[in-house]
């Protein structure tokens, strides 16, 4: 399994390739496929401007007369548009690639935001205890009673109201990141708090405290690395959720505008034509969305099992 020389001091890669996680990864073909899919989709999103045949955000290049062209292999297809066009004459393939970029961008940033907030809140709550802990965890409990999508909708609406009519144009991307990020932090906070409660009474923390290291340094340099495992698992699973949430918000019309469509926006546009014979406008972006969410979700599930000592 390891192509690297075994007689030398094992390097980082070699150690990784020899780990339990890697073995469990290679043993499951489904997970390998999911990982390849995720990588492919992410790469095509990142390189969308270079591989997309058209630039769907450049309005000047759209021609209304190309609108609703069916995919290449159907009658009336056009070889410029492999997957057909939408109701504005936008190439579906390019729109999907750019939409993928926005969908992944929003979800990754949102998950990072949620992780930062949640981990900090959890560490602080677990380490200090007392009223700080009660305050943070009660807020978390209250938020947990609402479904994440509802919280995201609420924050989205509030952000738009606060920004007012003028500045929301172009800020939609960040409004989405913040609203999804703020609705997902609770899980991290609860997990990290639990692990921190266990860790903080261990000898190494006591020792660190004894030699006078400041609490902040203890929290982030000593406790954090030891509670990070579960956080990574949650982050991966949350990524799939964030992708779906972004798509839902865009589908409801409170996400990204049709001029810079995400996958959810594309499905919303296509939904009007779904039963009218022009199925490709909704189906292709929907398929890519489902593929992405499924692949990421499977990676998350596998990571959870692989890192769970009880299942080894």
């Amino acid at each position, binding site marked *: 399994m390891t192509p690297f020389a075994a007689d030398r001091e094992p390097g980082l890669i070699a150690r990784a390739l020899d780990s339990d996680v890697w073995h469990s990864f290679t043993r499951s073909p489904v997970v390998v496929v999911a990982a390849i899919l995720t990588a492919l989709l992410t790469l095509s999103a990142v390189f969308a401007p270079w591989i997309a045949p058209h630039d769907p955000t*450049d*309005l*000047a290049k*759209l021609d*209304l*007369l190309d*609108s*609703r062209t069916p995919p290449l292999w159907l009658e009336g297809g056009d070889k410029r548009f492999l997957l057909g066009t939408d*109701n*504005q*004459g936008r190439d579906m393939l390019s729109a999907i690639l750019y939409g993928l970029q926005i969908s992944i961008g929003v979800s990754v940033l949102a998950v990072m935001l949620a992780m930062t907030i949640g981990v900090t809140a959890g560490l602080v709550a677990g380490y200090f205890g007392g009223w700080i802990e009660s305050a943070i965890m009660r807020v978390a409990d209250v938020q947990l009673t609402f479904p994440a999508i509802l919280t995201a909708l609420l924050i989205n609406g509030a952000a738009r109201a606060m920004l007012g*009519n*003028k500045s929301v*144009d*172009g800020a939609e991307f960040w409004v989405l990141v913040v609203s999804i990020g703020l609705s997902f932090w609770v899980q991290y906070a609860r997990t990290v708090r639990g692990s921190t409660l266990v860790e903080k009474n261990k000898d190494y923390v006591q020792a660190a405290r004894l030699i006078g290291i400041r609490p902040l340094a203890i929290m982030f340099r000593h406790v954090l690395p030891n509670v990070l495992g579960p956080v990574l698992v949650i982050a991966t699973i949350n990524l799939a959720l964030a992708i779906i949430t972004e798509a839902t918000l865009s589908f409801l019309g409170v996400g990204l*505008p*049709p*001029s810079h469509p995400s996958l959810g926006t594309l499905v919303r546009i296509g*939904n*009007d*034509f*779904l*039963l*009218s*014979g*022009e199925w490709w406008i909704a189906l292709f972006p929907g398929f890519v969305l489902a593929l992405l969410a499924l692949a990421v979700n499977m990676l998350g599930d596998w990571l959870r099992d692989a890192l769970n000592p009880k299942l080894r």
Partner: protein
Amino acid sequence: MTGQNDAGEEQGSGQMRLRTLFLASALAVGLGVTAANAVTFRYAFQGDLNALDPYTLNETFTLGALGNVYEGLTKRDKELKIIPGLAERWETPEPTRWRFYLRKGVKFAGGEDFTADDVVFSVERALAPGSQVSTRLPKDVKAVKVDDHTVDFVLSSPNPILHAEWDTWYIMSKKWAEANGATKPQPATGKELNNFALKSNGTGPFVITSHEPAVKTVFKPNPGWWGQKEHNLDEVIFTTIKQDATRVAALLSGEVDMIEPVPVQDMQRIDANPTTSVMTGPELRTIHLYFDSKRDELLYSSVKGKNPFKDARVRKAFYQAIDIEAIKSRVMRNLSVPSALLISPLLFAKAGDFKRHPYDPEAAKKLLAEAGYPNGFELTMHCPNDRYVNDEAICQAATAMLARIGVKATLQAQPKAQFFGRAGASGGFDTSFGMLGWTPGSFDSWNVIVNLVGCRDEKGNGGPFNYGGYCNKKVDELAEKILVEADTAKRDAMISEAYKIVHDEAGFIPLHQQTLAWGVSKKVKMVQRPDDQILFYWTTKQP
């Protein structure tokens, strides 16, 4: 309200109470019988029915829905001819004095008698700030009560079409309004609806028994209505279904009996379905794009310190950038008639004299360069997304077409309540470039010239629906003459002259008249007027 009535009956004689009891039980039995095979008519529209205050929104769908509940002094029949409504007849003893004889024995749904006081009150309320129906009446009109059932309207100058739009100026009860705190209209921009705006109290053939704004509204026949009943409905349920595909599916599955509008891509499917059909007809509404040519600096543009739309060349460049034939064939699937004027050719005899400025992006670029914008500029375009057929798609197409002449327009499409709230007078005309559709309520050009084209101030005095604030004093002068001119040929010539001024300096971009398309279950017979009001008091349904 009901509390007061109950108290009154308690104090009445025993005989009265017995009679009330008997009536109540008879009514209950009657209801029980009809409930078994009650005829319920369900219809769905793409937009909301929000406030029930008939003066909040001057918009066809809302006024149409409320036209089943409220009535004006005049009404319009199935062919749009003016017929008596709450006024039995009227006369003009002098050119500046109109006398209306009110129908006797009419009661509001809440039990109040309909009298001249209600008419005088409705005049004041319609002209009050926040009202969008103020154009139904001249600003300086005086309503004088002669006796309980006679009202005089005293004008400062003659107006031969005074009552032409009164079918949608609904009369409200003074007593009810005072008891419910509804003496001032609910403004369209109001963030929250006042309590009274969730209730209604009209004289019409139906009453609203429950109302959830933007969700569902239930109408029941008004048993005390004065008129001759032409429907067989026991209940009408209105719901908002915003998604095109969902609305069509609801009709095809029989969940609703009527939908409006039918998405153009689904017309054939609905017609081919054995239980449904599409009712089409010409529509009078003309869709147009307007420019803010009033402000010294646009609110939503990259151009600072000046307003590019004050230059007719820029407006004309925008006009010539729009490929109306592409919009017709691709977005509207040929169900629209491109228009050079702000009025339907059905309503103006000389409409054929006008031709649209041709689609020519090269010429448009040149015009922009001449005006000092060789590289174009940026701006935000505002559109409704649930009012007109394919409104958002048309605006999207327009932004793409503008991009080809270098103008970077960002589209903000909003539901009609928000859009009309911000773009109209009560929102301070808060847009720079947008879309509006207009049906002249009087079916006459004067209405168009005054409402859409007339000069206005910041508050909307003048042309209240001139969202862009286009202004040409010559047009205003013509409008004054047109109003008092009785000779048709002379009047038409002056109307032509006014339209020519607006056309030549591209004050607006008229787009098209859309085709009316209602999806209707074959069980239902409806009357479709070109003004697109859904009036179900002429609707019958097989049980």
